[in-house]
Each structure stands twice: as C-alpha cells, then as structure tokens.
C-alpha cells in the first residue's frame, strides 16, 4: 500500500490581528485537530480520499469559528450565501454549489451534485431545491448567527466594501 496523507486549511483569520488570545487559539486548534483526525481516520481505515476530505470539511463547517457552514459571514443583505466544491482525481468528476442558503453542510450537497446529478455546478434556488430533494439538513438563520460575524458586517454595512477574514477591506473593482 502506498503512503497516504491529508492536509486542511481553515482560511485566514481576522483574529490574527493582535486579537488571538490563548483560549481562542486553543479553540481553533481543537477544531482543526478534530477535522484532521476525522479525515485521517478515513484514510487509515482504507477509505477513499474523497470521503476523507468531505468528513474533514464537514467538521469545520459545523464550527462557528471558520467561514463556512455555521460560521459563514454576512453578505450585504444580512444573509449567508455559501459555496462549496469537491473533486476526485481518479475520474475528475466534480460537484459544486454556490449562492446556497440555509443548508448545514454545503460540501455534502456538492458531493451529491457530483455523484447524483448530471451537472457540475448548481446555484441559488436550484441548488437549494436539489439539496432538499436529497434530504440535506436545513438550518434557519439563528443557526448561522454569530455576534462576532455580525459586528464584522456592521463595520462595513451599507458601503461598497467587502472584507476577507484577514484583510480590512478589498476594493470592489476587479477586472
């Protein structure tokens, strides 16, 4: 059997800017460790890479600490529009969703798009209807509410600026 490996990223953090307390750092590392362990266990038990990455990402989506799933940031109208994509290297099959609201684990919907639809990318209402048809777990807006994320949004709400986790602002003009 060949070597195996897994790697994760949790995005880039606003808390790095002098705000990372030992307790917060511990909390972030705890979730990262849990996600890593879930993914690695799949591989260790001879599971498929695609299962390992899905497990790991779902674990981070279930945490309010990371900008995905439960921890998604606020968009301009105060909603949470999520995106997810998954791809396997053997077949180069891919599945993706975007502009998706109210779904607990967008990555699992992307997996179903890859395996159970004839398509690669579903957006918005169509993605939501597909998720519902596949019995994915729905969550209301309270599930996605986080005070820290809300305050981040309040700082730039009403402006044309938007903010990545690790930078103050990004100009809205792109080529």
């Amino acid at each position, binding site marked *: 059997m*060949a*070597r*195996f*490996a*897994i*790697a*994760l*990223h949790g995005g*880039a*953090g606003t808390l*790095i*800017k002098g705000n990372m307390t030992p307790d917060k750092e511990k909390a*972030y590392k705890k979730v990262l460790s849990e*996600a*890593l362990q879930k993914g690695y266990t799949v591989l*260790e038990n*001879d599971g498929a*890479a*695609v299962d*390992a*990455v*899905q497990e*790991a*990402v779902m674990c*981070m989506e279930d945490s309010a600490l*990371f*900008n*995905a799933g439960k921890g*998604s*940031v606020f*968009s*301009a*109208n105060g*909603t949470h*529009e*999520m*995106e*997810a*994509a*998954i*791809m*396997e*290297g*053997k077949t180069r099959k*891919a599945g993706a969703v*975007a*502009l998706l609201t109210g779904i607990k684990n*967008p*990555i699992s919907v*992307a997996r179903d798009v890859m395996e159970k639809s004839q398509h690669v990318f579903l957006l*918005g209402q169509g993605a939501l209807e597909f998720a519902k048809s596949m019995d994915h777990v729905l969550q209301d807006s309270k599930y996605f509410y986080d005070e820290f*994320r809300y305050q981040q949004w309040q700082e730039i*709400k009403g402006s044309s600026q*938007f*903010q*990545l*986790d*690790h*930078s103050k602002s*990004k100009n809205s003009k792109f080529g």
Partner: protein
Amino acid sequence: TVGAVACDRRSNLAAATSTGGMTNKMIGRLGDSAVPGAGNYANNKTCAVSCTGSGEYFLRGVVAYDVSCLMEMKNMTLQEAAEEVIQRRILEIGGDGGLIAVDAEANISLPFNTEGMYRAFQTSDGVAGVKIYK
C-alpha cells in the same frame, strides 16, 4: 474558507472546499475559492488543490488548475508548482491567499502569501501538525 486535500492508500486524490464568502459581499456574487478549477481541483496524474483567499483573483488565475498544469506540462514538483503560483503568479495580479495541495505520492505543500493561515496536516509516515501561521 475551509478545505481539505487527501491522497488515499490507492494514490487516489481528492479536494474539497467550502466557504461563506466575504463579509458584505454583493448578493449574487459567485467567486470565492470554492469554484472548480479556480480554487478546487484534483487530478490523479498531478495533484489535489484547495485554495483560500480573495476569490476573484483565484478565478482570474485559475489557480488550482494552474498548479496541476505546471506539474503536468513543465514537470515541476508539487512544491515548485504551488510556490510558483502563490508566490509569483497570483501576486502578479494582486492576489492574496494560499493553498493546500497533495500529490499521488502523498507529498504535501502549504504555501501562502498573507498573514494568519490556519493549517493542519498528517501523513502516514508520522509527519503531522496543527498550526496557525502568523
């Protein structure tokens, strides 16, 4: 944005990426790293990649696929290709962020060009870490 890449015991690769976008983003804006080819890609011949950063730049740079192309067409190693894309190509168009990648020999690369990256990794040879790069 969160993501994972893996190489299993059969040397099959996979990548997953999920994001809540950007704070105060325009409604209907699609384009964070969770777009196939731009911020998410897997090909057993080369690598699996998941990106994080300012999504529009990753779309313009077709970053995840670019790493794979550099390996396939220029015979770069995973580390060389990932570094080339994050430390040179994406910077040339003003992009910031990073990626995680793994190849079919379970080599891992974790380059980034901005502060505050949350990373975790583990290989079957016992190399492991959970780090917040400041």
